[in-house]
């Protein structure tokens, strides 16, 4: 479904234009770490999901919202600016976008060491360079929380 070759021409061109406009990130950093079964994991989603009552994401927002791990599903809503992706999956089941329940199940099986009490959301329509400052801020918080495995999930 998300194969470029399967998309209509105007949609394919939109995504190709985004590739053309990407900045050069240079060499790929690769942070090593302990075995997976010892890692502490947090989720960062760029789906624009946030807790009901928190500030919705305005257009172009490059900041993040905190999703405490004990947030009930009923309190998670989405304020992404794009209308070009499916939301019916998220409406039916939060885990199709924000798989915290699945992560906890894998923790219970011993696949990962622990799950952070805090997770985070950006709104993925922001210009990529605009995300850098908040990403650096967030990295410091994650390290303070001893998170050594971050799952990045888009929509």
């Amino acid at each position, binding site marked *: *479904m*998300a194969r*470029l070759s399967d998309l*209509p021409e*105007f*949609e394919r061109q*939109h*995504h*190709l234009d*985004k590739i053309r406009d*990407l900045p050069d*990130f240079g060499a*790929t*950093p*690769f*942070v090593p770490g302990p075995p*997976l079964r010892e890692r502490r*994991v947090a989720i960062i989603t760029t789906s624009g999901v946030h807790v*009901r009552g928190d500030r*919705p994401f305005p*257009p172009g927002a490059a900041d993040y919202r905190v999703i405490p791990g004990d947030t*009930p*599903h009923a309190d*998670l*809503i*989405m*304020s992404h*600016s794009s*209308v*070009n*992706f*499916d*939301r*019916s999956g998220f*409406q*039916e089941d939060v*885990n*199709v*976008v924000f*798989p915290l*329940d699945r992560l906890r*199940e*894998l923790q219970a099986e011993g*696949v990962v060491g622990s799950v952070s009490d805090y997770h985070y959301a*950006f709104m993925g329509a922001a210009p*990529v360079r605009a*995300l*850098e400052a908040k990403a*650096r801020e967030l*990295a410091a918080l*994650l390290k303070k929380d001893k*998170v*050594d*495995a*971050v*799952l*990045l*999930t*888009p*929509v």
Partner: protein
Amino acid sequence: MGALGHYLEREGVATAQISLIREQTAAIKPSRALWVPFMLGRPFGSPNEADFQRRVLRSLLALFEKKSGPVLEDFPEDAPDAASADSGFACPVSFAAAKTGAGGLAQALRDEVAQLAPWYDLARKRRGRTTVGVFGATVDDAVNHVLAYLDDAPVLPVVAGMSAGVAVKRACDDVKAYYFEAAAAQPGNLAAKAIDQWFWNDTAAARAFLAIREFCKQSSDESLKPLVKLSLIPRAVIDRVDSAGRG
């Protein structure tokens, strides 16, 4: 998504990401990525498919066992409901009466919202939640905001703390969420593409959104300009509408 991976890894935080557009991820070269062949908006495949979601998550987590990168692997399975989610069969909800009734588009929208109410209530009860609530506490707040734009000479409704553009975008998102959640509660109507096609082809709500887009084109309010091309109507619908207009 790939950019975030670079920024976090530069700061010493290990990341692994889902890729929905493989070509973009290949260009960005993040440290660890798992491409999945799922529809945009569904990075873990399908709703209510816990086993499948766990398989995707296990594959993503396994990338942390790699000793070097960048790594871009392909998830080998399609989503369990890929065929039905992508199928465009007609949604049985019919609004023919509302379309032809007296009172114009505004009344048609009110009628649809009322017709869908029991299905929305059922969806909310069954799921234990609703995603309506980005604009106001209930869908009525959002509907009233949209209705204000359908007057013959609209006076832009003012919402404290929001530009006109942000307010109407959020109101439309809430109205759309209400329709989608209601339609999904009806028997046999969980297919994503069918609901999407029904909404954009057959509802007064979609016609109201298109009317708002036309208003935005003519308005001098700069906050409404982005809604002409983005944020309100999907690219596929804009392409169709504008092509028909040129034809």
